[in-house]
């Protein structure tokens, strides 16, 4: 018994000393690292569990995406059905309009043939002046065809075709000083002539407005029915500023902020006056627009 007790004392002292040495050494961090490594190697449950959890966690997201797609699909189908009804209504109104025009003896406007084209080149020296599109004679584009663009789901006036080549065309922008388009102000249906400016290429100038008219900044400007190039009621821009009146002139002018950002345009809609030879590039039905030539003098 004495011997066992003595041995127990020795063993206790040795192991206590060893334990104190271990306590003194900074071993916690290495042990944690070893433990993490061992857990990864010998215990696949956490790793596999994490993988499985990730898979399960992604499942509701996929189901939600699927349900969202289904809802969108149903809504689009309803919109398509509505579009079909709208198309039928438009055709009916067009037919009625043509019949009434015929009865009144008015000239039937020429049908325009829309064509989408890509903007393919811009001249850095004339950034606000013109650009080239990838549609030319081969697709039925002709000189002075109207060019429209899209801005926030609204069709806006961009310019007109001034040069037609075999497979490409040059579009002169409204902001070029050589451009001009007959337009009216939404507030009072006052007509004027919207022109590009050489000094400030980003803004347009609307001239020849009645000097007595009260114009408010923010008024919208649309193409006039008297425009030769453009169909009527196409958005041109908004009044940015009203210029001071000149007492010696019978008209006033305003600055117009164009609705189309020419630098951001990637695709444009060319309204071809002539029917294309082939129909492979047709995107929409021909659009009937008024083209009374009486006011053509107002537009170059």
């Amino acid at each position, binding site marked *: *018994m004495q011997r*066992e*007790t003595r*041995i*127990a004392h020795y*063993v*206790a002292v040795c*192991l*206590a000393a*060893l*334990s*104190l*040495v*271990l*306590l*003194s*050494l900074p*071993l*916690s961090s290495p*042990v*944690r690292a*070893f*433990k993490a490594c061992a857990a990864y190697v010998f215990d696949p449950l956490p790793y596999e569990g994490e993988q499985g959890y990730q898979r399960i966690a992604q499942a509701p997201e996929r189901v939600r995406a699927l349900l969202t797609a289904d809802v969108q699909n149903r809504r689009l189908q309803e919109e398509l059905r509505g579009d079909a009804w709208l198309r039928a209504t438009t055709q009916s109104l067009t037919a009625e309009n043509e019949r009434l025009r015929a009865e009144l003896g008015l000239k039937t406007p020429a049908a325009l043939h829309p064509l989408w084209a890509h903007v393919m080149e811009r001249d850095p020296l004339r950034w606000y002046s013109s650009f080239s599109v990838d549609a030319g004679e081969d697709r039925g584009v002709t000189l002075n065809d109207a060019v429209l663009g899209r801005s926030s789901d609204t069709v806006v006036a961009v310019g007109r075709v001034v040069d037609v080549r075999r497979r490409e065309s040059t579009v002169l922008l409204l902001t070029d000083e050589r451009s001009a388009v007959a337009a009216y102000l939404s507030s009072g249906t006052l007509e004027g002539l919207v022109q590009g400016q050489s000094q400030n290429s980003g803004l347009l100038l609307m001239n020849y407005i009645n000097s007595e008219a009260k114009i408010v900044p923010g008024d919208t400007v649309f193409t006039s029915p008297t425009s030769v190039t453009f169909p009527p009621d196409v958005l041109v821009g908004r009044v940015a500023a009203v210029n001071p009146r000149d007492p010696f002139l019978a008209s006033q002018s305003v600055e117009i902020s164009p609705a189309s950002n020419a630098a951001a345009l990637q695709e444009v809609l060319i309204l071809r006056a002539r029917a294309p030879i082939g129909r492979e590039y047709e995107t929409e039905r021909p659009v009937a627009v008024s083209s009374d030539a009486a006011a053509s003098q107002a537009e170059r």
Partner: protein
Amino acid sequence: MNAVRAAVLLAAAMLLQWWWSAHLAYWGAAPQFLFALTILIAARRGPVPAMLIGWMWGLYADVLRADLFGADALLYMLAGYVAGQFRSQVDLEATGPLAAAVFLLSWVYFLLRGALGSIFAKSFLWAGWIPALATPLLNAVAAAVAAELWDTRRAR
């Protein structure tokens, strides 16, 4: 053969401790099987084997906790030493006194561990009230069950 069986039992106890702590611990309270078994071995086999096994199990417990490496080794070994020394004064062969001893030594274990933290980790390592109150009780139950199993096996 006995050595192999002992090694298997030691490993099984370590595995049980890890599995229970990892999956069945609630609010940090889980029985310290290795601590209770160290005292049981001290009561049945004497202090020397209890200290050696307890020190090894303590190192394993240190690896499991990894906050104050060496503390459990020292305390498990001391528990085996104290239980081995007192088995001549107290009948630790009986289940009741053994459970009481495990309960008291568990409390001492928590206090000493906190004190070791004050010395080596510069903060009192307090396990929390729930583990501190529940674990000694669980340890006592575990020691009692282990003692009953030991006696049953020896009776065969």
